[in-house]
């Protein structure tokens, strides 16, 4: 229930628009019911008048019929416009809130999520929530209001008819859809699970197509796909049959209500408690009043999906950042030596600690390389320095100041990071560079580019600095992307340099160029380098070997280079 209340709560600011929408929706239903009732009454009265049994002033009702037709059409237009406007405003605000809450979650809290999943929450799931406002909230409110008005009117002629039709309407519009909704929950899960399995199997089959060929397992994969598709369709069949039956019963209930109205009202005509035209009017009114509840089954059907979408959105909005900002941040230090003291940290995915009481210090202006197997804790060390991940024990300090005492922005302002997976945005070269330095002029950008040997390449692009890079820098080669990322890091110009596999995947020549530039950059800066490339290791003062979250050995570079087997096993040829 609280999910719905929260969705309702998001309306702040748009409440007035939405109330107007509900009023208009009610007006539309009432206009239609009145139109049909009046038509029934009108032609019956005209028939009786034609037979000379009653007298009638036909101009007013005839004009009323036309007028109601106009009110209905125009009202419907206005209602849609108002409710959609209000809903879209709510969703746009929610989207920005979502993103704002997402920022402090990166990267620690977002680790279990894939980007595509987060995107679909931010876009598709939030879009799905319009169902709540447009297809649940407004129709339910309008149906409730108009039913009260209709039944009050009908009760004026016959309370019994009012009661009978109210029961029918509630049955078809509320009881039945709710029943179908609760029955549909289980198959809804089965359906989603079957679809997800189908996706995984298809993706794995394409990824492992070579293995399927070599091990002659293609036929087995095909029958697996067929079986999973059949399971999905089986789950859908259960839904389809249930919906078909529910729809049939709803239709039957509508008709039976009309029938019951006849049974109750005909004796009233015989007893002259109501007139013939009123009987026709009541029958038409009852038929038309079902339009008020017609949208409800579809709304209830989509309810499970809407709630699931809401939960996916709220899950992110409610998530606590992994590391809280200090309430009163201290000033940044003036020395830039880096120290880890007994630091222990875990990732949620693994019971073994990523850092296990690790001690390490890098004197100001010195360069230290970290080597070790993947998963040993090299990147974790950097993550704790940047305060992206919380630590359970120990302290991480820069110049004697604990990193969690500084504001996150100030702390990260002290570092220049070239990470293996630094992201390039699908924007221009200049925009990507200015991320690090928003006010940098073109000359500054060019000098950063020439530093990494990219100036000529960028100048040759169709629009120079203004050339869009494409998805994750697709315009550039792997080496060029890395160099651009380095140029961007350079523009940040900070006293601590963090290089996480800066030349991984570059060919030997490019590597040599990039390393030469990095060497000039390292002068005077405290540097932490993670790399398994011998050429890169040549730049540092010391090398530390990390295994299982601890520093197992730390030696001057020259010593490590002279055939220390423990270091050698991690170095890579290509």
């Amino acid at each position: 229930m609280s999910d719905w209340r929260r969705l309702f709560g998001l309306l702040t600011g748009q409440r007035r628009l939405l109330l107007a929408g509900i009023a208009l929706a009610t007006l539309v239903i009432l206009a239609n019911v009145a139109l049909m009732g009046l038509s029934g009454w009108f032609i019956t009265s005209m028939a009786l008048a034609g037979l000379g049994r009653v007298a009638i002033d036909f101009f007013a009702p005839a004009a009323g019929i036309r007028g109601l037709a106009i009110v209905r059409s125009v009202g419907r237009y206005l209602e849609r416009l108002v409710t959609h406007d209000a809903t879209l405003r709510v969703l746009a605000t929610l989207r920005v809130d979502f993103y704002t809450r997402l920022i402090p979650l990166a990267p620690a809290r977002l680790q279990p999520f894939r980007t595509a999943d987060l995107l679909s929450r931010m876009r598709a799931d939030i879009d799905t929530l319009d169902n709540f406002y447009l297809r649940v909230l407004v129709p339910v409110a309008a149906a409730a209001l108009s039913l009260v008005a209709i039944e009050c009117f009908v009760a004026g002629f016959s309370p019994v008819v009012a009661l009978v039709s109210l029961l029918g309407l509630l049955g078809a519009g509320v009881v039945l859809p709710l029943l179908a909704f609760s029955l549909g929950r289980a198959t809804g899960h089965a359906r989603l699970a079957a679809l997800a399995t189908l996706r995984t199997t298809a993706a794995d089959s394409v990824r492992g197509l070579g293995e399927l060929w070599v091990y002659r397992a293609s036929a087995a994969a095909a029958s697996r796909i067929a079986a999973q598709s059949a399971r999905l369709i089986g789950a859908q069949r259960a839904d389809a049959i249930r919906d078909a039956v529910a729809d049939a019963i709803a239709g039957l209930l509508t008709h039976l209500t009309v029938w019951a109205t006849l049974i109750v009202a005909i004796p009233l005509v015989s007893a002259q408690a109501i007139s013939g035209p009123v009987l026709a009017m009541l029958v038409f009114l009852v038929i038309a009043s079902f339009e008020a509840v017609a949208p409800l089954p579809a709304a209830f059907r989509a309810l499970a999906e809407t709630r699931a979408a809401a939960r996916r959105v709220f899950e992110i909005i409610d998530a606590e950042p992994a590391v809280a900002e200090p309430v009163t941040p201290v000033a940044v230090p003036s020395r830039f030596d880096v120290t880890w003291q007994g630091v222990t940290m875990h990732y949620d995915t693994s019971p073994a600690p990523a850092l296990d009481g690790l001690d390490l210090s890098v004197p100001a202006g010195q360069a230290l390389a970290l080597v070790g197997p993947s998963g040993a804790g090299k990147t974790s060390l950097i993550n704790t320095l940047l305060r992206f991940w919380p630590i359970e024990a120990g302290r991480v300090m820069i110049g004697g100041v604990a990193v969690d005492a500084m504001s996150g922005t100030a702390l990260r302002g002290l570092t220049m990071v070239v990470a293996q997976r630094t992201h390039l945005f699908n924007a221009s070269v200049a925009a990507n560079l200015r991320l690090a330095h928003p006010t940098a002029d073109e000359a500054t950008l060019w000098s950063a580019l020439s530093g990494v040997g990219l100036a000529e390449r960028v100048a040759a692009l169709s629009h120079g600095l203004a050339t869009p890079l494409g998805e994750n820098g697709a315009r550039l080669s792997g080496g060029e992307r890395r160099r651009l990322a380095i140029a961007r890091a350079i523009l940040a110009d900070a006293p601590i340099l963090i290089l996480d596999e800066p030349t991984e995947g570059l060919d030997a020549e490019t590597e040599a160029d990039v390393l030469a530039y990095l060497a000039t950059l390292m002068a005077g800066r405290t540097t932490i380098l993670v790399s398994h490339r011998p050429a890169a290791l040549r730049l540092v003062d010391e090398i530390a070997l990390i295994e299982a979250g601890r520093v197992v050995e730390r030696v001057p570079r020259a010593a490590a280079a002279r055939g220390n087997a423990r270091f050698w096993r991690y170095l890579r040829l290509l």
Partner: protein
Amino acid sequence: MSNNTSKTVTRTRERWLKARLDGRRGVLRAAVAAGLLDAPLILLQAWLLADVISSVVIDGQGLDALAYPLAGLLGVFGARAVVGALRSVLSFELAARAKQELRRDLFAHLIALGPAWARAARSGQAAHLVADAIESMDRYYRDYLPQVALAAALPLIMLVVIFPSDWVSGVILCVTAPIVPFFMVLIGKGTEALNQRQWRRLARMSGHFFDAIEGLTTLRLFGAAQREIAVVADMSARYRRDTLAILRLAFVSSLILEFVVTLSIAMVAVYIGFRLYYGEMSFLPGLFVLLVAPEFYRPLRDMGSQYHARMEALGAAEGLVAMLDETTPAATAIGSAAPSGPAAHLRFDRVGFQHADARTPLFEDVSFELTPGRTLAVVGPSGAGKTTLAYLLLGFLAPSRGGITVDGRDLAMIADAGWFDQIAWVPQTPTLFDGTIADNIRLGCPTADASALHEAARRARADGFIKALPHGYDTPVADRGEGLSGGQIQRIALARAFLSDARLVVLDEPTASLDPDSETRLGDALADLARDRMVLVIAHRLDTVRRADEILVLAEGGIVERGTHKALMRADGRYARLWSLYRADEAGP
């Protein structure tokens, strides 16, 4: 794209969608027939209802005299419920069969496209097509197609009955009815273009959001996240305004539509009223026509609401047709000859390969021989064609020049199945399929018994960690082997190779540094595997190249050097230079 060609494209795609129904027309006809059956029932219901009211109002009869028509109404209600449910279920079956078959065809096509294609393909796109794109066809087959037939037929059936009852109303309905589909088409056309523009905008917005989420850590590193919020807010606001603009147009169009329909019904009511007043018709047919009039427009209006089902299906068909149009490679095996016993000699004779869209060959003149017990290591910079070389050997690709022979016979003449019997392949990142660890090791030999399975795992040095898993060999592989390390996945793939008892093993070493345990065990297992087999390994680590009987250095379009580690080091060429980069002490500071 010009308006004309886009129209042709739409038409071809729609024809393609309909062609999926060949052989299933019977189900479609049954679904439409169930829908058509509703027409006489609607008419009968309206007539009985009008009869009851007319008898009471005009003839002054009471309930007791109306038992028959009232009982008849109950019968009609029941029949309509049954017919309606039947139609829904039949329509569902129509879509179900179309989807199941489409999936089968599409997947068969993906398999046929082969590993060489899969190397460049995005598995996510395949997953989207197989699962989601085919699901988007659902409403088209289920709702739209049957509704098209009904929208044409149902109003006609009703007109046939309305005309004799009251020709004036018949004329009003007749004249206004075409306005409905006319506006539908107009709305469709108008919003189609706008929708397409909106879809592009949406795609752009999604792309930007994707970027903004994917790069969140980078944004935080540079303190640029707050600036990005403003961009997201701006895009959201623009998206909202654009969406509303499109909706406004759609609403105006449906306003006109509703207006025509509602006003026509009102006109029918007023006309009938006046004709009754002047005694030009009797009450029963008048009331009947008024009851039928809304039903007359209903199928036309329903079709309008199915229009987006069509648009969605057409959109999804685009990706499917494009994928199905990708030509499958000519079968690498033109012959069907079985290999003559276990392969004992493999020979590359001046093999060259050039991609179809490349101007220069990837490499040329690659020759080597391989016999059981020998290990050949290939090293070289990325992009030199190491994987392509392996693919040629596996038979995934055919050489552009030169020949590959197995025991003197051309590889192209040997049937794929016979060749694959002889080989095992361990890619750089092996794929673990849905199933248990045992299922995955048994991939090539589904009938292997437990002792063979355990032996293979033991030899792959995988037995230890598998036994330590909660359910041992029966542990299900969760989400692409999550919880297993890269080295462990490699050893499971090696167990596959041991179990299949292949003559030739092709191994692509992982580039990432493995945990020390995996590192050593992988090396041991590989040495074991190489003992009496032919092994081609794309090497990334020291141990492997040192142990290899021959090393090929593949670079710049061919083999630049070859020999053993020692010989190559002595030669002081390219290989030795690679090594010098490696040896930090040589250059020194």
